[in-house]
């Protein structure tokens, strides 16, 4: 056994230990999130944030801990997935029926989907895109218009909206074949503003007033506007959308995983590393860039559709340039090309402003300062991207 192999073997945790680590980490995360969601006490929230800050400071000082946890999750993968799934399914039952906490979770999950969508571009392929908010809006408006004017059900509107947004995504990808970096960033900014302004001015999109009265989805005769009853437990109606958006997050994680492991993900990473070298390796740069725009728009439209049917009222102001910047911030703060990091970034940046309502006036200021501090102190994000590893352990 060579020295490196020996070192690796000694670093590999025993199965029992990794199982314990997985359970401890997942339960701790769930409990802390619950405390954070249900607490009204500013002191508790600040204490929780401080705890989290301390946690990341520890990871910063001792990266070995992060590696150990990641290794444990790799070892006990099935258990981790199973426990994670159970926690997500059981979570609404432990929220004391608080519809506000569920609402926060739904919005955070939708932003997680958006951030994962953008991550394909920004994280994997390093293509700046400030138009995710626009794709989100296109999805929301398409499905809402279909539902209001043609009575089309949510389940049919979902794929149609995604297809329409994807077409727009490819349309936006078209100029991306020629422009680069800041110039490309401006093209996407311009696209986002054009879409927002058009939504704001057309009469058939309701202008600045938006669209009202989007009907709630119905599944097997159960309207999503009605409370959910499971095993005699009565959950607020938000629980329907909680499970729907959780399913969407799961789908996004799965597709992120599959794409990352596929030739497509590898091609995107090659683009990020060096576009010219990628082209020399026979990678069709144009196609993969366009594909990144398409995938981003597709997932963003899913989130948009769920959002539209959830709040049943959308207006252009839900889909501004600032929304796109927020999504981009989530990806960067969370950690580019790291699925877990991006989701955490989305949760943090959705929940933090909501929970800081006590400082209501200083909220935006505080969040902006936090973002700047993050970029300065931990530029790689909460969790940095991990090196690909192939086969074996």
């Amino acid at each position: 056994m060579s020295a490196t192999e020996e070192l690796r073997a000694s670093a590999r945790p025993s199965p029992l230990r990794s199982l314990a680590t997985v359970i401890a980490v997942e339960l701790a995360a769930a409990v802390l999130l619950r405390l954070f969601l249900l607490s009204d006490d500013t002191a508790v929230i600040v204490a929780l944030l401080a705890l989290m800050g301390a946690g990341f400071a520890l990871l910063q000082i001792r990266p070995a801990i992060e590696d150990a946890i990641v290794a444990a999750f790799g070892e006990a993968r099935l258990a981790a997935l199973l426990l994670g799934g159970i926690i997500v399914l059981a979570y609404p039952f432990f929220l004391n029926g608080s519809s506000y906490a569920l609402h926060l979770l739904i919005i955070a999950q939708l932003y997680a989907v958006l951030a994962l969508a953008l991550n394909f571009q920004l994280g994997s392929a390093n293509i700046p895109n400030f138009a995710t908010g626009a794709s989100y809006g296109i999805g929301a408006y398409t499905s809402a218009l279909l539902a209001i004017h043609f009575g089309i059900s949510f389940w049919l509107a979902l794929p149609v909206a995604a297809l329409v947004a994807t077409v727009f995504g490819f349309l936006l990808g078209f100029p991306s074949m020629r422009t680069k970096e800041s110039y490309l960033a401006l093209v996407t900014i311009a696209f986002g503003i054009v879409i927002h302004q058009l939504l704001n001015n057309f009469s058939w999109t309701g202008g600045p007033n938006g669209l009202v009265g989007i009907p709630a989805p119905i599944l097997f005769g159960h309207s999503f506007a009605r409370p959910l009853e499971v095993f005699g437990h009565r959950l607020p109606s938000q629980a329907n959308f909680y499970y729907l958006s959780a399913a969407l997050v799961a789908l996004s994680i799965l597709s992120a995983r599959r794409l990352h492991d596929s030739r497509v993900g590898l091609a995107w990473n090659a683009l990020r590393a060096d576009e010219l070298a990628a082209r020399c390796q026979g990678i069709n740069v144009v196609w993969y860039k366009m594909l990144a725009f398409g995938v981003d728009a597709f997932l963003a439209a899913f989130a948009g559709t769920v959002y539209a049917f959830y709040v049943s009222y959308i207006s252009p102001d839900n889909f501004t340039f600032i929304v796109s910047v927020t999504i981009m911030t989530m990806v960067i703060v969370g950690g580019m090309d790291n699925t877990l990091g991006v989701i955490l970034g989305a949760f943090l940046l959705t929940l933090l402003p909501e929970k800081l309502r006590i400082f209501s006036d200083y909220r935006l200021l505080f969040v902006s300062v936090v973002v700047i501090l993050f970029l300065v102190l931990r530029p790689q994000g909460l969790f940095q991207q991990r090196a690909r590893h192939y086969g074996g352990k």
Partner: protein
Amino acid sequence: MDSLLAQHLVNWMVLGSIYALVALGFSLLFGVLNVIHFSHGDVSIVAPFVALAVIQILFAGVLPAGAGWALVVALGVAIVVTGLLGILLDWLVIRRFRGAPAMMALVATVALGSVVRELIRMFYPQGSNPKPFPALIRDSVQIGGVQISAFSVLVVLVSVLMVTLLFWIMHRTPIGLRIRAVAEDRDIARLMAINPNRIFAVTFFLASAVGAIGGLFFASHAGVVRFDFGIQLGLIGFSAAVIGGLGSMHGAIIGSLLIAGIDTLVQVTVPDGASYRMVFIFLLVICVLVLKPSGMLGKPVFEKV
């Protein structure tokens, strides 16, 4: 000449001048630091607030008749303070992103812009309300038989003067030579005993002070100023600098005139044009970038292995 047409032409020139003053800052900063300073629009709009504060402090808000000098003092203070604010923001935040990927700096400066906006909103007295901004001059002048407001003439003249001054500084003074040297190669410039950080500070001062003049004119043109005007001004200035070709000062001016042109044209010819002007401006931006991917006067990027 048709007086309506003349009016539109004057309007075009005024808008073009205001946008150019802001766009020049973007281009200058990008050329020297290779950084997109997205909060430049917000920094520029700080100037009218400073000017209002000075007027408030000196005269309790009411300009005495014939006190032209007071207005000049207020504007001068505003320009200098805004220039110093640029240096401060660089020192506090932007310098930490010198070696970072471009997107990092972009997102950081977007957040920085939001900090500037929020600070005005929170800490300026009644900062969230729109504030009336005084007209700089009220008279009008006769040029070629057409009545033109003196303000328009002032805007265009001052802008031309500022652009000339900027070109003169960049190409005829030792400091300009140093700025160009740092823009060309930071490390070689250091070998020539130039302190890049000092040059960056000077560049930030110049860009922010010129932007401040743009912000003051913008406020005076609109007759009112609000804390979030900086977003629009910044986006348009940035667009003008980009379609002209980032780093090129001529490009920034041409880009501004082009954007102001389409802005005026749409408002005049398209029914309900005022609400569609942003659509047309940004469609133009997309079209220009599709045809000329690195802007009109930008250097084409050659990739070398």
